[in-house]
């Protein structure tokens, strides 16, 4: 625990974000804006089949096409070596398939050419011979004993022991608390339902893009759009067997990510092409490629059963979560099971999860990975129980809410949480206290728990001789963190924000930092910034002691002033001391390098009002409120933006979004016309209520806030629709057709 600072000046204020002006004048530079002399266009050949063996790849004609400077396939990767061959082969096959393709869009080859047209023509000239295999695109079908097998070396990993037969079930787990059978026996009401949810995409507006350039001495520089420069470096180093010091990854402005830019898709291929072509190469994905060949969230099938007594106490909860991993293992089923029952005190419970491979895109993280669908099913059942038992939905949640020290079904113990505070704020909100009137209208509530990751962040801080401070952070700014991290540094240094400038460093100029994901950056990189600021202060105290010829212990720093108490002559402002630094032994550089092991947690409650057209099933959102415990809002305007943006993604998931596949595994809607995300017309103004229960493991009490708000909307909206017209829809998205079907109208 750290001492939480009080009487804050910079933290908690609402300055304009430092990147705003560049962005409103069109000057902000994104990966797609990179232009280098002699730069070529790279394009990727992708599998038209969801499951096939590659018999041969002939790139001869493509290589001879005028204007083509290089063609690469898996054969251009360094040869596989020794024992690590199995895991390594899968890693490389994801980048460029060698012997088998596992989803439509699986990369097979790539070309570098002078123009996009020539590149396309070259792709058309590559001949690939396939032995087409039966695909499996339905997750339940993939679990059957006679299902087509994607990976013949795969065995189910489980704490019960590793399986013996080839399977598509990559992993299985089961967690039990208490005695679920007994718990259900004690219940007066039991709700048992099954839910389905399709793959959904992050839909960042900027597609993936990577520009690679090699220097003559073997150094590789990549200009990328990513959440983590160091993860791109690791990826490319592993793929091409380079040394880390050979590779410099430069972060550009990121045009949206939401988890989808934690993974690397075109960086390796760009590097391979650039090496072969001996020219800079830029590879940018098209929108259909982005849908088909990056990492959406898992489609899933979930069964949930919960029981409660007449007086409103939950007695038992069970869930089975079956998550699609896509073509390679690694769905976020663990995250889903971790959070779904976490807001409630449940004495008896069971959670069972399956990670299943199917012939679809390989899933990646999407804002609270795996959690939104799990929250949707648990919260729908909570709403149904509350309704059946005659409780107000927020009262019911308050009655069962976790408190300090409560243990969840998976054994996590809640510490320093604001669950009750959030529910109470929601209950007292102007929205909830205003009755909803009118026919076909309904109100619903959803409630969610999500933690924030800690992990590694690095910051360096140079005190300039004019008293300004230049900071470099290893985190990529995807949400405004250059501003919110600089604010935490400025607060610590007692400086106004305009004296502290924070920039993103490339991998050569700053120490390792984990990806900007998991709601961690403002918290963990904030830690690093505060640590660097203290390093600066300590070093400046030493200088002041040197100048004043006193013991360093005598020098006190307070609110931007260095002084010796009770000696008025010995007082220097930060700036005045900064000006003296070059004459007392060069500038001061502070370092903050942390690995934060504390996982913060936060709770959010959403309230949705809808109107449903009973003839067509069309849903109109009338009013929407997000209430969330944010610990301490470093930059409240940015926090509100996270809450509003997250809620809107959840609203899209609730009502519109979802991959559609045919039986052959072909995605039917890979455009922003047919994969529908909310427009400005689909969401109302989103009201936000920031509850601040300080988190004691952060210097200012901040919690990670970015992911939680995507979770509650589907359940809140589903309940509102049920209240409006009596249709309880269990599958996402809640389309008009599903509402009419549930009502028996069609």
């Amino acid at each position, binding site marked *: 625990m750290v001492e939480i600072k009080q009487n804050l000046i910079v933290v908690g204020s609402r300055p304009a974000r430092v990147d705003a002006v560049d962005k409103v004048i069109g000057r902000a530079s994104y990966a797609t804006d990179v232009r280098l002399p002699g730069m070529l266009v790279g394009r990727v050949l992708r599998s038209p089949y969801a499951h096939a063996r590659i018999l041969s790849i002939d790139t001869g004609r493509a290589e001879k096409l005028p204007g083509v400077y290089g063609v690469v396939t898996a054969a251009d990767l360094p040869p596989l070596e020794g024992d690590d061959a199995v895991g390594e082969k899968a890693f490389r096959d994801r980048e460029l398939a060698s012997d088998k393709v596992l989803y439509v869009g699986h990369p097979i080859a790539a070309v570098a050419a002078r123009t996009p*047209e020539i590149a396309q023509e070259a792709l058309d000239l590559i001949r690939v011979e396939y032995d087409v295999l039966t695909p499996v695109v339905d997750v339940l079908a993939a679990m059957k004993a006679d299902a087509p097998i994607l990976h013949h070396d795969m065995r189910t990993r489980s704490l019960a022991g590793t399986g013996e037969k080839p399977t598509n079930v990559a992993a299985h787990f089961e967690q039990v608390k208490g005695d679920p059978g007994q718990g259900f026996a004690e219940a007066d009401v039991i709700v048992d339902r099954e839910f389905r949810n399709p793959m959904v995409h992050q839909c960042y507006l900027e597609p993936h893009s990577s520009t690679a350039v090699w220097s003559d001495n073997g150094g590789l520089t990549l200009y990328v759009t990513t959440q983590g420069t160091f993860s791109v470096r690791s990826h490319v180093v592993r793929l091409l067997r380079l040394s880390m010091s050979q590779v410099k990854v430069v972060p550009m402005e990121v045009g949206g990510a939401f988890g989808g830019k934690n993974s690397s898709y075109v960086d390796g291929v760009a590097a391979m092409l650039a090496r072969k072509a001996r020219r800079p190469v830029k590879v940018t994905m098209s929108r259909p490629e982005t849908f088909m060949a990056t990492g959406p969230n898992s489609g899933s099938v979930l069964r949930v059963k919960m029981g409660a007594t007449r007086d409103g106490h939950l007695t038992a909860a069970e869930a089975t979560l079956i998550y699609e991993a896509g073509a390679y293992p690694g769905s976020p089923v663990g995250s889903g099971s971790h959070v779904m029952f976490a807001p409630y005190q449940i004495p008896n419970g069971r959670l069972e999860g399956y990670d299943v491979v199917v012939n679809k895109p390989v899933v990646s993280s999407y804002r609270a990975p795996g959690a939104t669908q799990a929250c949707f099913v648990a919260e729908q059942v909570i709403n149904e129980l509350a309704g059946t038992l005659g409780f107000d939905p927020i009262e019911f949640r308050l009655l069962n809410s976790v408190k300090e020290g409560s243990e969840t079904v998976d054994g996590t113990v809640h510490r320093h949480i604001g669950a009750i505070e959030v529910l109470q704020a929601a209950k007292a909100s102007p929205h909830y206290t205003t009755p909803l009137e009118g026919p076909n209208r309904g109100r619903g509530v959803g409630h969610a728990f999500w933690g924030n990751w800690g992990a590694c962040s690095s910051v360096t801080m140079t005190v300039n001789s004019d008293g300004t401070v230049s900071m470099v952070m290893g985190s990529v700014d995807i949400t405004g963190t250059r501003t919110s991290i600089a604010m935490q540094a400025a607060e610590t240094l007692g400086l106004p924000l305009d004296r502290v400038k924070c920039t993103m460093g490339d991998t050569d100029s700053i120490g390792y930092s984990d990806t900007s994901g998991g709601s961690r950056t403002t918290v963990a990189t904030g830690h690093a910034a505060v640590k660097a600021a203290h390093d600066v202060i300590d070093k400046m105290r030493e200088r002041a002691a040197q100048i004043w010829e006193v013991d360093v212990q005598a020098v006190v720093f307070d609110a931007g002033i260095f002084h010796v108490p009770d000696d008025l002559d010995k007082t220097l402002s930060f700036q005045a001391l900064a000006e003296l630094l070059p004459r007392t032994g060069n500038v001061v550089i502070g370092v903050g390098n942390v690995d934060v092991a504390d996982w913060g947690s936060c709770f959010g409650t959403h309230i949705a009002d809808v109107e449903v057209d009973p003839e067509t099933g069309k849903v109109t959102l009338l009013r929407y409120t997000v209430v969330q415990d944010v610990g301490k809002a470093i930059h409240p305007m940015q926090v509100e933006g996270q809450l509003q943006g997250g809620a809107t993604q959840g609203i899209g998931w609730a009502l*519109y979004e979802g991959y559609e596949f045919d039986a052959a595994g072909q995605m*039917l809607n890979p455009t922003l*016309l047919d994969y529908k995300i*909310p427009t400005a*017309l689909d969401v109302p103004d989103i009201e936000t209520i920031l509850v601040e229960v300080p988190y004691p493991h952060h210097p200012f009490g901040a919690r990670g806030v970015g992911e939680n708000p995507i979770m509650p909307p589907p359940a809140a909206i589903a309940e509102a629709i049920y209240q409006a017209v009596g249709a309880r829809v269990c599958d996402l998205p809640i389309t*008009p*057709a599903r509402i009419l079907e549930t009502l028996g109208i069609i």
Partner: protein
Amino acid sequence: MKPFAYEAPTSVDQAVTLLAEKGERARPLAGGTDILVQVRRGFHNLDLLVDVKRIPELVRIDYDAEEGLTLGAAVSCAVLCEHPTLQAHYPGLLDAVSIIGGAAIQGRATLGGNLCNAAPSGDAIAAMIALGGEALVAGPEGRRLVPIASFCTAPGVTALRPGDLVVALRFAPPKPHSGAAYVRFVPRGEMDIAVAGAGAWVALSPGGTTFTDARIALSAVAPTPLYVERAAEALAGQAPGEDAYARAAEAAQEAAKPIDDMRGTAAQRQHLVGVLVKRALRAAVARAGANHAGTGMEA
């Protein structure tokens, strides 16, 4: 995108000559909101795009109380929506025109393009069918009028022959006591493709007591925008009201041949046809009543 040549003729004759020379390998370019996307996706293999927006006849709007309305095929939806004559006399057409895409698509998309794209879901096509519109087509053999109801023959296929160019869309002047409306269903607020749509035009007796004539057209429930022939007889002589609307809706549902696709199910579309036809008729009748009261007929 595969390379192609570009020409921007300034007369219909030049355009027709250019199009006729290249036959299937040339297409007119109006707003480009469909054709450029289709060329990019490789649906067409073209040598030439003929930009028709520099031909004065294609970007003109003429209205005459006797002759009716002639809309240049390449006038953008945004221009149409702002036009006072259309607002006053053809609100049923603007219902459809105003919902084709967002503001940026409106700035480019055209009625000629919407018609020639021949999508089953083409909102403006159904609205134009309901209004009894005709397309003025110029071709190597001269000019002819093609009823919009028979213009589209299959998804993406039209009655046009090689070298043909749609010059304008023509509509009769509004009859007294008549009104039209177009409604569609999309799951989102807008910016979407119709799951189903219905256009209706009605003419009432001077007292507004009975239907004297009617036309109903549907979108997205058949391989082409669909003219519902039996709807007129279902309504003729009936008093405006829910009974009559239900009969027309039933006739429309019988005519509809919807399919399941990613935008909706057949059952949903079949159901929506009934709902939307009734809604279109209510709106059209309300507008006919407004005509009856004398508003909207000035100018």
